[in-house]
């Protein structure tokens, strides 16, 4: 007998590349360029703060909104770094990674049938989260504009049912980011058409070519924007699961309501460690950033020599590389590369069905691995050429 479950969940497509992921996970000695997290371990002083908090007996719930001292630190950081004033009392919410924050944001702002614009290719969860919240994702294909959202394409995509835009920069999977002027143009369209901006800036600290501009600093944007960030990528704290949302009081209040019933609060150990990170971790962030930037240049040179096409990423730690010339679909390319050369990467279709001629390469890996994988991809491509 087939049991009836939620129609929305039933309709959600399972990821088409799950089987590929399982293949990678079942294989030994793979060099992986398929990882969406830093290869650094959390800096020691942050880990130590987590340990100390356990020793001192901090094992209870915290306020639903998160530890006050962490919210205060985030407020101070936003003010000192970007001149943005958010009240730790009712404009900041600590969440289980940015993932939860995105879910809360969607569920808070959407009514059934509302549309949310998503730049494509995009991180995997945006569309499904919109659907789960009863909304409808509308994808804007950005490949003809260098994987950047153009104000024109944005304007065209907006209709009466459009409620929000999800922006993510620097972007996973493309690494592409925006300068202030480009963001201002997007902001102008959003304000004019009364569209909310949900800005996922988890890679904001990893911007290599220019200063990162948080969306809410733009003129008039703060009251119209839910700013999402977290500790995972900047401080190499993915497993701790700490993110946060800063936004207008009404929206943060709504998000907090859902959060208090579903999550209650973020684990206190992680919050204590995050508080340490924001106080003493900046030096580590800068060191890691310099290292990523060097790896980006290194990979850029290597991929160019392999005659692979890509748009130069300005941040995060990804290259979104075209494999069109090889004649293989993204999944075929990834599967064969894995089987023949034991190099793993993520097929482009993971980030949008129509990106079947792309793969995502992550350079959050050691030089040793990067060097070796470039050699292996090289021989993989050469063999193909020989045949062709």
């Amino acid at each position, binding site marked *: 007998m087939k049991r009836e479950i939620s129609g929305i969940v039933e309709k959600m497509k399972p990821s088409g590349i799950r089987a590929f*992921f399982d293949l*990678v*996970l079942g*294989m030994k000695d*793979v060099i*992986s360029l*398929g*990882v*969406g*997290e830093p*290869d650094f*371990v959390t800096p020691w002083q942050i880990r130590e703060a987590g340990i100390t908090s356990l020793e001192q007996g901090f094992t209870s719930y915290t306020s639903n909104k998160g530890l006050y001292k962490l919210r205060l630190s985030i407020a101070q950081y936003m003010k000192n770094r970007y001149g943005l004033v958010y009240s730790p009392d009712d404009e900041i919410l600590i969440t289980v990674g940015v993932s939860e924050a995105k879910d809360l944001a969607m569920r808070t702002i959407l009514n059934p049938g509302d549309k949310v614009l998503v730049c494509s290719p995009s*991180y*995997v*969860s945006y569309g499904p989260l919109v659907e789960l919240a009863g909304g409808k994702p509308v994808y804007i294909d950005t490949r003809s504009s260098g994987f950047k959202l153009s104000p024109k394409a944005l304007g065209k995509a907006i209709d009466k049912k459009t409620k929000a835009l999800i922006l993510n920069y620097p972007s*996973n999977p493309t690494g592409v980011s925006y300068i202030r002027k480009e963001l201002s143009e997007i902001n102008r369209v959003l304000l004019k058409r009364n569209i909310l901006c949900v800005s996922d800036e988890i890679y904001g600290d990893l911007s290599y070519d220019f200063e990162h501009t948080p969306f809410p600093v733009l003129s008039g944007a703060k009251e119209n924007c839910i700013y999402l960030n977290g500790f995972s990528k900047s401080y190499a704290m993915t497993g701790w699961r700490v993110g946060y949302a800063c936004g207008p009081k009404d929206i943060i209040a709504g998000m907090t309501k859902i959060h208090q019933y579903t999550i209650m609060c973020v684990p206190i150990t992680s919050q204590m460690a995050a508080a340490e990170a924001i106080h003493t971790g900046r030096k580590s962030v800068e060191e890691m950033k*310099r290292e990523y930037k*060097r*790896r980006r*240049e*290194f990979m850029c*040179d*290597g991929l160019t020599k392999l005659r692979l096409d890509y748009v130069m990423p300005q941040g995060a730690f990804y290259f979104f590389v075209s494999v069109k010339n090889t004649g293989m679909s993204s999944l075929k390319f990834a599967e064969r590369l894995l089987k023949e050369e034991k190099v*793993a990467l*993520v097929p482009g279709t*993971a980030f949008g069905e129509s990106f079947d001629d792309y793969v995502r390469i992550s350079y959050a890996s050691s*030089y040793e691995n990067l060097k070796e994988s470039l050699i292996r991809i090289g021989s993989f491509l050469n063999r193909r050429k020989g045949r062709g």
Partner: protein
Amino acid sequence: MDEILEILENDGRTTAEEIAKMLKLKPEAVKKTIKNYEKEGVILKYKAVINREMVRDADAEARALIEVNIVPQKDVGFDKIAERIYSFPEVSSCYLISGTYDLLVIVEGRNIHEVSRFVAEKLSCLENVRGTVTHFLLRKYKENGVILKHKEVNKRIAISY
């Protein structure tokens, strides 16, 4: 610090070509900069960091940290006497420090007796050396920023979004 130095300090085997790629510079320019650093003595030498805990080396089985109290000399202060001390091949490191004594000297030898003999017969007898306190090293955990054990294995899952 210049990023070229940062890279080389972390891995002295990184080639000028690789550094050039990382920093988007011309290989010739990187080579020239490195040559200059070598000439100026900013880069003194390239060597491997060996985990001596894992190598039984008959020549350096014993190590001691020695606090040395000295009488500074007129005009040259501590430098002259420090030079006399650090010139001994047995001395692997020598620092002038603030506090209750003046020089911290690290001495290596085949065994405890050899190190003791060096302290008793060479170091303590030097003119201007007022006294010494010897601490033998029992175990090394970390040296010059390097933790002396196997690298932390990366526990990330091999693929993720």
